[in-house]
């Protein structure tokens, strides 16, 4: 009732979610969050999937403009292809927020899950568990923006702790990723028997490494540190034994909610700030076992900082589940 315009008449508001990546649990959860938040606000949400076609994604922004939406959430994408398109939307008087893509525009708040923090949390845990000197294998595929950012942290870390020795680097995005990475990891583990830590800063990678470690019967000798989380990951970490001991993650559903909330604030004439950071949480195997967490819902219940955040939540904003 006391919501600011235009949310006093939310059925007249429509927003668009223009996505670059869509296949996978992270993106699905993100979408769910965005949809739930839109429902809570009572606004219409159109989803435009470019399916990893950067050029198409830029066109889709234009399409959204043509459809006459009030606001746009850009989810992932390439700076180069999105900057101009977003500028056109801004010029057309449309409010835009961007998640995980830098569109180089002062008028566009950046929603971030802070990949650097994710990697830092996981690596700090690794140092805590294994000391400052160990042989590590690293799973990395360059050219993927979040992985590149996590890679920067890894480089910094190696610089800081000279005792950390990276003896092997591998990785692939061949589908199914977990299966292909498992094949690679088996080879790497046999070629480098001294490895005790595997840094796999993407849950698909970690899953694959875990399969290889299990198959080699090394579950108690090797520890896997990773980023991102899903119900399947929780199950994998909980297995007995499991080499996957810790992962740093932001709740993708929460990011979806925050993205829409930030956009709603813009539409209501408020300022969510230029960088809207959703802080990551470290999830360890011990935590999962102690609190008997079996899926994402339970994780949200038992780790409140994972479930919700005050980021971008003015008083009038209806929240999901309220």
């Amino acid at each position, binding site marked *: 009732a006391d919501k600011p315009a235009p949310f006093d008449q939310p059925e007249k508001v429509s927003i668009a979610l223009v996505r670059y990546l869509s296949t996978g649990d992270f993106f699905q959860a993100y979408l769910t969050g965005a949809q739930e938040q839109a429902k809570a606000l009572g606004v219409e949400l159109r989803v435009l*999937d470019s*399916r990893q076609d*950067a*050029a198409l994604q830029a066109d889709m922004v234009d399409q959204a403009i043509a459809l006459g939406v009030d606001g746009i959430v850009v989810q992932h994408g390439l700076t180069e292809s999105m900057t101009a398109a977003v500028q056109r939307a801004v010029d057309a008087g449309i409010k835009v927020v961007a998640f995980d893509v830098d569109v180089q525009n002062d008028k566009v708040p950046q929603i971030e899950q802070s990949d650097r923090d994710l990697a830092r949390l996981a690596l700090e845990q690794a140092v805590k568990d294994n000391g400052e000197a160990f042989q590590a294998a690293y799973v990395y595929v360059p050219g993927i923006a979040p992985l590149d950012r996590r890679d920067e942290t890894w480089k910094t870390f190696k610089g800081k702790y000279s005792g950390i020795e990276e003896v092997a680097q591998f990785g692939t995005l061949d589908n199914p990723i977990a299966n292909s990475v498992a094949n690679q990891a088996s080879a790497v583990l046999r070629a480098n028997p001294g490895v005790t830590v595997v840094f796999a800063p993407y849950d698909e990678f970690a899953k694959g490494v875990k399969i290889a470690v299990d198959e080699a019967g090394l579950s108690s000798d090797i520890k896997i540190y990773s980023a991102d989380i899903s119900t399947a990951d929780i199950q994998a970490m909980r297995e007995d034994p499991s080499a996957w001991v810790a992962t740093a993650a932001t709740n993708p559903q929460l990011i979806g909610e925050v993205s829409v909330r930030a956009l709603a604030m813009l539409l209501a004439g408020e300022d969510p700030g230029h960088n809207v950071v959703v802080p990551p949480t470290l999830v360890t195997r011990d935590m999962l076992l102690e609190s008997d967490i079996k899926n994402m819902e339970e994780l949200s219940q038992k780790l409140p900082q994972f479930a919700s955040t005050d980021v971008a939540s003015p008083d009038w904003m209806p929240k999901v589940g309220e």
Partner: protein
Amino acid sequence: MTLAVRDLSIRYGFFVLLVALAVFFYAAQPAFLSLRSLIFVFQSVSITAILALGVTGTLVVGGFDLSIGSVAASSMMAASYAMVIWGWGTAETVALCIGFGLLAGLFNGVIIVYGRIPDLLATLGTMFLLLGLQLVPTAGRSIARGMTLPDGTTATGSFDPSFLSLGRARLFDVLPVSVVVMLALGVAIFVFLEFTRWGRVMYAIGSNQQASRLAGAPVERYKIAAYMISGGFASVGGILLAARVGRGDVSSGNSLLLDAVAAALIGFAVLGAAKPNAFGTLVGALFVGMLLQGLTMMNAPYYTQDAVKGAVLVVALLFTFSMTRPGER
């Protein structure tokens, strides 16, 4: 009489389907049938269509080119590398990329014709080769302005605005350049295949190579030329991709191969041709584009798009092909 009906439905069944779909989408979402929307459909398929037109050339001589997706991706990387790292201008870059595409086609053609490797196999090899090689210069990184090179230095070049305009500018403020290129190449290859003697010989080779040779056709040269056309077109696709994306992105171009092949193969069904043909390929590409556009407008989840694409493909083709060769028994 019944014959005429069948004949008509073979020839125009596909168009009826196209129109029916358009009407359906229009009913669901009137914005679907605007000029903007139409142009958007054209633009969204332009790169796929260009690749598909190229592969049509190899289909005509009875071959197949699985390497087009990776040729396009490599050409995109080459364009980005030339501009961002070497600081080349637009003209040289475009020449480099097309040269590269022709070379890749030449390679394919030579190992197929003189190495006698079956076409699927040879081009699959080339595909893997290029998928890997394109990442070597940057050690797997995407190429962007100001990127850090493997040797630690920072790239100083950037994309030339005139180059970027290839992907972004619009003719008369309406037609995107990539659509113009697609239409131009489409018309060119259509005229070439249908009306010139070289195109005729290509069809002859595809139908009976031995007979064509004994009728005086330099079969080897034609086949190699077909693969060069295919490679050249793919590299043009890559250039447009680079211009539109503005970056040598390692993951762009993944789905190009399958979508292009789908378009070229759907083209078989258009006008009841039952053979590879350039006009059909263009229509096939537009068909897929329209479908995806319509579904997006109706807010269908992304995964239904594949399913619907597949279903309509099967139904359309079932309809066309099961009628094409009548009463064999």
